[in-house]
């Protein structure tokens, strides 16, 4: 029932007839609750380290470029036909923080907050790196990505290879999300590169390395009995 003598609505529907003054306040509160509930969030996230708008724009542009390329050429990632009925599909972009940096190698750290009690299935995972073209321009450039010493990927780039490059991280990220860890650490080594491997190592740069993943999330207990 609504204060102020509003006509009670249909009792079975629990939707009160809203007076104009209360409607706005009621609906804004309802919207907050609805968005948090549908995103399985307990409270609204507080973004303590905002990402530079340019880095966000860059990442979103590459996300869609990557998506368009994948849709055109059936390559390692078949076009994604969307999540099952009892799952929520996500695309995730995670920006790297640099842990250490030397002339030819650096450490990248990605922070995830796996939803409590949700099992995350990674369907696609790529690391995007911006590599500055080597001054010499002669020697080939070799990019190696490792995790805790285990080699994940090694790529030879043409000598004049300045620009964005992708490295697939699918098995590593699937294994990571099966664990309980929330921090993913990668080591990047670049042979034949000048200075540190990627031009975007400092956090404020629009060439910050980032990781793109596609996932489905299912809350436990939501197993649908398939007949």
């Amino acid at each position, binding site marked *: 029932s609504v204060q102020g003598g509003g006509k009670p*609505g249909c009792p079975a529907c629990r939707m009160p007839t809203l007076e104009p003054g209360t409607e706005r306040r009621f609906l804004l509160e309802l919207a907050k609750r*609805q968005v948090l509930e549908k995103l399985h969030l307990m409270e609204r*996230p507080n*973004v*303590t380290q905002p*990402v530079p708008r340019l880095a*966000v724009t860059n990442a979103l542009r590459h996300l869609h470029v990557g998506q368009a390329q994948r849709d055109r050429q059936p390559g390692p990632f078949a076009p994604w036909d969307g999540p099952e009925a009892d799952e*929520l599909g996500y695309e995730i972009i995670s920006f790297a923080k640099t842990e250490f940096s030397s002339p030819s190698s650096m450490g990248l750290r990605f*922070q*995830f907050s796996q939803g409590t009690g949700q099992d995350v299935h990674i369907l696609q995972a790529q690391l995007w790196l911006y590599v500055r073209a080597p001054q010499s321009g002669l020697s080939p450039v070799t990019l190696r990505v490792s995790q805790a010493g285990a080699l994940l990927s090694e790529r030879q780039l043409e000598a004049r290879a300045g620009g964005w490059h992708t490295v697939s991280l699918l098995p590593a990220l699937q294994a990571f999300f099966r664990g309980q860890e929330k921090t993913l650490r990668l080591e990047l080594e670049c042979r034949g590169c000048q200075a540190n491997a990627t031009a975007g190592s400092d956090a404020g740069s629009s060439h910050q390395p980032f990781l793109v993943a596609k996932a489905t999330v299912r809350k436990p207990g939501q197993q649908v009995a398939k007949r």
Partner: protein
Amino acid sequence: SLRCDQTSDLCCRKDYYVDFRDIGWNDWIIKPEGYQINYCMGQCPPHVASSPGMASSSHTAVLNLIRAHNLQPGGQSCCVPTHRRPLSILYFDRNSNILKTDIPDMIVEACGCS
């Protein structure tokens, strides 16, 4: 389904747009700027009870009148959503990662009498 207006108090869809700036959430929700939090309201008198949407034809209305006369007294019919659509949302999580997802059944498109 009818959109609510002042003339009728029959079951209809009430449109209401929530701008995320009004609730101070535009810092973590990148896109969209807001969404329609529409809801259903209005009466469901016997002759339109259990009609899926108010756009029913006169044929259905006649059928409903016949049904209404045979209706057991006290049957309560409610004005409820009959069709909803998803909302695509792009937002920051607490680690400044960007997530994009489609929230199913988020926006009420049509109302009808249960």
